[in-house]
């Protein structure tokens, strides 16, 4: 094999779990330059595998842990990895990202990605030690929480191994189960269920292979400058308050989804805000490996039950969305989701949907009421045991609505099956477009279109087709960040994102990369995700929002109103801006 390109190992490890063996597969330089790493490389590998047409929980399904050219470099926030598979929740592409030591150790195994296919004969731990593959029995870890599993594996394998684990939710193949590492989660879209379907409780990695960098002195100097800037005002919000500080802002702007998107503001918001929690409870900070921002804020639970990491999305989904202003219940729900291995947004969204179904008399579960903290906690437990209503809740809101019937799909809070994050699209209409066209469904991490709504560039209540290119731009930036990979909380530090990213990539790889090349790369990655979805059965009809959001204004802000026609015009403009057909099909030439 030719010498690896700086920043890469120029090969991935393809593991057939049925056979219990792995083989290295070379990655050509042109292929890597076209797809980079993370999400971009992951989607390309899955397309090569034919994963789009396989059932996501079948023997033929593939799941890839994908590293990136920047992992292991001195660049702040670069210790990240992507988990890419077909989603059991949406049956569309799913790329979830997580951070920290697993990314560093995974890349040191000597591969740019680890792709799993087949199914282990029994519950197993997949061990990859410097590229050597082994399957060890996992029976003693079954039923353990993500946190307990990670601790137990550290005891068994030693601290040099880094592990990515599933919790009981992944073992039961709950459609929105996570893969967890070091308290962070590849959260959305159910990658934990895919790993569970392969009989893998955890992946443990260790290695000693470090790729070269093309220009180490210049890279170290650039990294130093970025670290310096990352201590500045562009990241102060994350460092000092955490993302949870969005809560009161969104509440004031009437875009805080409340009671299953029936309202855009929540009377109990102050009681669960970080401003209030920070006064009443212990608060500590933490950060991922190789990160200078330190966005994680942990709040203490009562009665010595430890502390829990609180993000805006957890807080909104398990608080206002379910009508709950009991801080202890919300924090305990966050902890329980982390331990069970459940995506908080989908768990909260599905439970909130069920609460509204109960309110409307469509479900006979009178205990499951908006505002009831103990009921929320009970529902989370039932999702994982599968008892009672838990079987339905484990399906996610879309499939649950299909079972319930009675037009409940009209108020199921999802796009393509993925529950909508904490931005009411009626009052943030560029984001409405971002949600509608998102390749993995309603998604605030793959489209940052809310940034446009929070600016003078548009009237957020009346966004027109001429603004579609702004949504495209945020999606392209996200695709590149997710493939390099760098944390999105760093984005305010860049002055000219594509130009500076090109400089970084050039110093790592030695390629003469330009901003324009990276713009093309980002568009290629977005198109590859679309191609995957088309192969998986995508149709234009799914690029929309729940009917309620197209029929009803927010009662607390009547300017926040969309219509099916207006959203369709935005989607059409977006498709044309991407160079696709007005309906969203990719021209054959691409």
């Amino acid at each position: 094999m030719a010498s690896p390109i700086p920043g890469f190992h120029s090969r991935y490890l393809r593991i057939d779990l049925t056979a219990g063996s792995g083989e290295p597969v070379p990655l050509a330089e042109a292929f890597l330059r076209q797809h980079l790493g993370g999400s971009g490389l992951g989607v390309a590998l899955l397309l090569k595998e034919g994963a789009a047409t396989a059932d996501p929980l079948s023997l033929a399904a593939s799941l890839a842990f994908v590293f990136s050219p920047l992992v292991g470099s001195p660049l702040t926030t670069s210790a990240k990895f992507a988990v890419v598979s077909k989603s059991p929740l949406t049956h569309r592409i799913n790329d979830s990202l997580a951070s920290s030591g697993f990314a560093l150790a995974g890349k040191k195994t000597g591969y740019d990605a680890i792709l799993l296919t087949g199914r282990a004969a029994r519950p197993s731990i997949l061990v990859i030690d410097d590229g050597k593959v082994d399957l060890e029995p996992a029976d003693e870890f079954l039923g353990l929480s993500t946190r307990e599993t990670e601790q137990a594996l550290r005891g068994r394998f030693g601290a040099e191994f880094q592990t990515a684990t599933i919790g009981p939710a992944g073992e039961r193949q709950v459609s929105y189960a996570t893969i967890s590492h070091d308290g962070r989660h590849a959260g959305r879209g159910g990658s934990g269920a895919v790993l569970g379907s392969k009989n893998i409780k955890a992946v443990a990695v260790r290695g000693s292979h470090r790729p070269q960098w093309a220009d180490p002195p210049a890279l170290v100097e650039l990294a130093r400058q970025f670290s310096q800037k990352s201590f500045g005002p562009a990241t102060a919000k994350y460092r000092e308050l955490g993302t949870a500080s969005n809560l009161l802002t969104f509440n004031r702007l009437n875009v805080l989804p409340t009671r299953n998107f029936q309202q855009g503001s929540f009377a109990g918001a102050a009681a669960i805000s970080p401003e209030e929690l920070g006064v009443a409870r212990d608060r500590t900070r933490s950060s991922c490996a190789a990160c200078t921002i330190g966005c994680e804020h942990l709040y203490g639970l009562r009665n010595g039950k430890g502390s829990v990491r609180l993000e805006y999305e957890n807080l909104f989904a398990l608080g206002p969305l379910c009508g709950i202003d009991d801080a202890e219940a919300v924090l305990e729900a966050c902890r329980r989701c982390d331990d069970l291995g459940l995506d908080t947004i989908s768990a909260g969204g599905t439970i909130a949907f069920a609460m509204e179904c109960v309110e409307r008399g469509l479900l006979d579960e009178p205990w499951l009421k908006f505002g009831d903290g103990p009921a929320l906690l009970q529902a989370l437990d039932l999702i994982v045991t599968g008892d009672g209503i838990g079987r339905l809740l484990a399906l996610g809101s879309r499939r649950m609505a299909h079972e319930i019937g009675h037009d409940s799909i009209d108020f199921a809070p999802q796009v393509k099956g993925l529950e909508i994050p904490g931005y009411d699209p009626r009052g943030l209409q560029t984001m409405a477009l971002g949600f509608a066209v998102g390749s993995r469904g309603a998604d605030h991490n793959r489209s940052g279109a809310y940034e446009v709504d929070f600016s003078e560039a548009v009237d957020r209540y009346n966004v027109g087709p001429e603004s579609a290119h702004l949504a495209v731009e945020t999606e392209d930036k996200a695709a590149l960040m997710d493939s390099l990979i760098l944390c999105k909380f760093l984005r305010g530090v860049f002055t000219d994102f594509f130009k500076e990213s090109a400089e970084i990539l050039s110093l790592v790889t030695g390629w003469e990369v330009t901003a324009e090349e990276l713009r093309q790369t980002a568009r290629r990655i977005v198109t590859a995700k679309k191609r995957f979805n088309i192969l998986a059965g995508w149709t234009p009809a799914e690029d929309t929002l729940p009917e309620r959001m197209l029929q009803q204004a927010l009662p607390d802000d009547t300017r926040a109103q969309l219509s099916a026609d207006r959203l369709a015009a935005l989607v059409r403009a977006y498709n044309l801006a991407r160079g696709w057909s007005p309906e969203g099909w990719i021209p054959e030439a691409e």
Partner: protein
Amino acid sequence: MQVVVELFGIARARAGVAQTTAHGHCLGDVLADLAARFPRLAESCIAGRTLRPGFTANLGGQRFVTAQETALSEGDTVLLLPLDAGG
């Protein structure tokens, strides 16, 4: 002319208050008034009569504004908040 100012996120943390009043005929006047009264807020969020990078203002919860000449009316509510809404 007096307006109500509501502060969010880092702006609130720096000013130490959630709400205050300020005087001025335009956004620049109001920012200068706030900067004079809340030095820590000015250090992070306000440079003279303009917002520092990373911050924005909003009128009445409806329209985002940053231009210092943005005209204000008696009783208007100005929100001061971080630009970055990611989470």
